[in-house]
């Protein structure tokens, strides 16, 4: 395969776990809560999926465990932020540390283990389309799920009653409250769902990409997801583009390293992060105007500690 094709296949493959986390963070932020603990949820999901697969040999059980493990730290974030009034950004970072520490301690005996993981499941016929086929239709099942989630979330947000309540909670929570909905319950549910999605993203990273466990497996992918939600201007249909830009940069870096290009691998490593920042620069001024109103106080630092 050509370099371009390799990079594009890798972009979808590497972008998919981040896309899960981006979807999850998007749901949380639509309820008016920023969750930097998404990184911690990804780590918990990755470890839970890996450990379950090692123990049972079933990646599907691993994915289910990952969703639960990803939701737990997010629920803790919900408790701290919604019920205890903790600052969202500071508490999110604390949740990340908790996830990092817990997974490092629990996972230390799993370092070096190998699993079979999720195999590639090419879609018949579609995967045989020249060029586009292998890029889009020859991946593990979770990748298809991540892609399908974009229109599904759009439909949920804009075409269902619950989506309306979620959006209203993030904009002006007194409105759904006046209509008899509890903003507290909406935020708990949104954060739990978001954490579960981030956990599944972590599961995909461990089960389909790395196939091993190391401490801090995600190296910032959960934080990238928070950036990509801004890049996507809180619109689910725009999330895949951002995730695949990040995945593409990651994939390009790996391909260039594999082909022995004479650039330091450490400089290439910076490409996904630099590219994400550049994407934000290009889109920020437009995106900010679409921010859910409930979030502006958080990002402006106005929310009290």
């Amino acid at each position: 395969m050509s370099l371009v094709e390799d990079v594009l296949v890798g972009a979808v493959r590497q972008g998919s776990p981040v896309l899960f986390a981006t979807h999850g963070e998007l749901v949380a932020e639509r309820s008016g809560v920023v969750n930097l603990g998404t990184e911690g949820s990804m780590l918990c999901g990755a470890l839970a999926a890996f450990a379950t697969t090692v123990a049972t040999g079933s990646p599907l059980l691993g994915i289910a465990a990952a969703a639960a493990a990803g939701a737990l730290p997010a629920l803790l974030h919900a408790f701290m932020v919604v019920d205890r009034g903790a600052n969202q950004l500071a508490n999110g970072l604390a949740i990340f540390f908790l996830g990092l520490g817990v997974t490092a301690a629990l996972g230390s005996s799993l370092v070096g283990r190998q699993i079979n993981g999720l195999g590639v499941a090419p879609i018949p016929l579609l995967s045989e389309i020249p060029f586009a086929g292998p890029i889009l239709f020859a991946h593990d099942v979770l990748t298809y799920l991540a892609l399908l989630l974009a229109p599904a979330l759009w439909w949920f947000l804009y075409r269902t009653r619950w989506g309306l309540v979620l959006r209203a909670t993030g904009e002006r929570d007194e409105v759904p409250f006046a209509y008899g909905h509890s903003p507290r319950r909406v935020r708990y549910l949104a954060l739990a769902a978001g954490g579960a999605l981030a956990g599944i993203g972590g599961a995909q990273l461990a089960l389909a990409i790395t196939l091993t466990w190391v401490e801090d497996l995600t190296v910032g992918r959960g934080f990238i997801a928070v950036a990509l939600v801004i890049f996507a201007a809180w619109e689910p249909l725009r999330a895949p583009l951002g995730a695949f830009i990040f995945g593409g940069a990651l994939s390009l870096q790996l391909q260039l390293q594999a082909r022995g290009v004479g650039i330091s691998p450490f400089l290439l490593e910076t490409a996904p992060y630099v590219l994400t920042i550049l994407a934000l620069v290009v889109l920020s001024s437009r995106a900010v105007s679409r921010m859910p109103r409930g979030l502006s106080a958080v990002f402006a630092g106005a929310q009290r500690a």
Partner: protein
Amino acid sequence: MNALPATGRLTPGALLRPPYARPAAWVFGTLLGLLVVLPALEVSIDQTLIRATPFILTGLAVALPARAGLINVGGEGQLLLGAVGATGVGLALPDTLSPVATLPLLALGGALGGLVWAGIAAGLYVGARTNEVIVTLLLNFVAVSVVAYVVHGPWRDPDSASFPYTADFGAGGTVPLLPGGTAHAGLLVALVAAVGVWLVMGRTRWGFRARVVGGNKEAGRRSGFNVSRTLVIALVAGGALAGLAGAIEVVAVEGRLRPAVAVGFGYIGFLASWLVGHRPLAVVGAGLALAAISVSGDNLQIDAGLPSTTVYILMAVVVMAVLGLRRRAGRQG
């Protein structure tokens, strides 16, 4: 001219009064507590003082911009670039120079490194309205790679085998120690910085402007302040403080740059500042307390064979307990 909201009591007098309630109580309370607890837990006081230095400085790197309404999550990266800056100066300076000249130059190199790194986020914030939380956070990951690059690449000590590091630039032995112990005097730098930030924010015209802008940008703008410049200065000054921490780690603790220098210290500083609602003097107490936890975590790692990151669990629990309890006490950050 009526720039301030009509409701509430936001008078210039209220703004001038330093909003840092009872920082002295925090510092002395923490110190007393540590003096009792540390020997009981067999945690070395010297080690705690050494570890507290970067925590306090990166905490101040968060507290100062926070007063101007900016959230700096990039202390980690700014510290690392400070370490790179100080190493660059250290490798370039001739060995024969006296420490009286070398140490300030190393510190300057570190501060500049952190300043430049924060400057990227500050420039993008005022120039392109990018969110400073996200940009400073992502730049941390870039900074890790920058350190790895210089250590594996241009500045690699040819004698270093599978764990590369830069050459020892020989400044370690020249760092003065605190009286009566083996801890280096970097803590004094951190203390001076804390008092300095406290004075600047509470007692100077610029600090007043920064706090007005932090409270309400529009109020600052209508009062004729240069809001963008104030914000940029606040963020790069924070970056310089974190960079100073990086310089101290490289010069006084490690003696050379290694890829794993000060891992996580900047994030802990972030938590330290949030613990005390960004009050600069109280950051000293929070830094000391978190340093004690961190050092006891090192012991845990050695005694129980747990990974060093396990200490983050303890740290996160402490921070969340404080973040969650404060609302109950009805205090504001």
